[in-house]
């Protein structure tokens, strides 16, 4: 099971909950909540996978507006959104391995 697929599953789950875009930590948290180990994905592993998914066109990203981050008194977040290409790739992966889709469907994210 690849992390790339887990990320796309998490992005889809979050979108279904009304969050069309998600930052790195939220994606890691969502993946962890759906996994048995409940362990957050390592920084390097997560951001390398996000970089690859974006370059492959499966995700697109943007920086949060600086004003909003300043108002919340924290660094800016980078938001990722699954693209149509990413949705097709995820659908193909689910079709190829439907068992894995059930195993990795995130149960619930605790943070927003």
């Amino acid at each position, binding site marked *: 099971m690849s992390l790339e697929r887990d990320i796309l599953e998490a992005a889809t789950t979050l979108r279904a909950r009304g969050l069309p875009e998600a930052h790195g930590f939220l994606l890691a948290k969502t993946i962890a909540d759906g996994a048995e180990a409940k362990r957050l994905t390592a920084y390097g*592993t997560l*951001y*390398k996978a996000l970089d690859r998914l974006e370059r492959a066109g499966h995700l697109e990203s943007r920086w949060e507006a600086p004003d909003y981050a300043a108002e919340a*008194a*924290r660094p800016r977040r980078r938001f990722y959104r699954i693209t149509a290409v990413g949705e097709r790739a995820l659908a193909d992966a689910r079709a190829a391995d439907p068992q894995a889709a059930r195993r990795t469907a995130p149960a619930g994210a605790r943070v927003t």
Partner: protein
Amino acid sequence: MTSRLLGRRGDGSAAVRGWVGFYTLGLPRPMRERRQAEVAGDLADETLDAIRHGDRSVLFRQRLVRLLMGIPADLSWRFFDAPAAARLYGPAPWVPLTRWTLALTGVVAMLAGGGLAIVTLPALAGQVRPDLWPGWGPVGFAIGSAVVLAGVLGSVFWPRLGALVIVPGAIIGLFAAPWLWGSWLLAVIAGAARAYQADETVR
């Protein structure tokens, strides 16, 4: 709230930020800043999450695990993925040597060139000195000196590549002539200083 989210002593955030700053050295400024800002955002969200759930005490251990487990991916990204993306930003402009890097480069070049000459010139003239020191030492010394010389001269034009060449040369030289450890260390310092000087994010 800001200071709490940006990390405090002992929560592991400084180690993560330091590591990201280290492995992104030498990348074009936009790539470097993006990775640093993204991880900084992650650290803040991680802190916020811990505060919300009242388990801030686990932050240090959690961060250490996330940091260590991600190092292979960080290095793989840095050496295999990032260089291709960095080329889109075009070649970095040549950076002239400062007084210090010129002095270090000159001293190391003279030491390496001199060492190479001492071993190879008698051999080329058919006057091999078997008493020089036993085993493969003279050959390793000559190879190490030649590689360090090539690296330190190359670092004038290609700082990062030069630094990368110097390191294996210095390691070979250290095994061949360990009593000259200070010279091999100086070579590595010269390469690192030049690479650091040429890093566009610290200029």
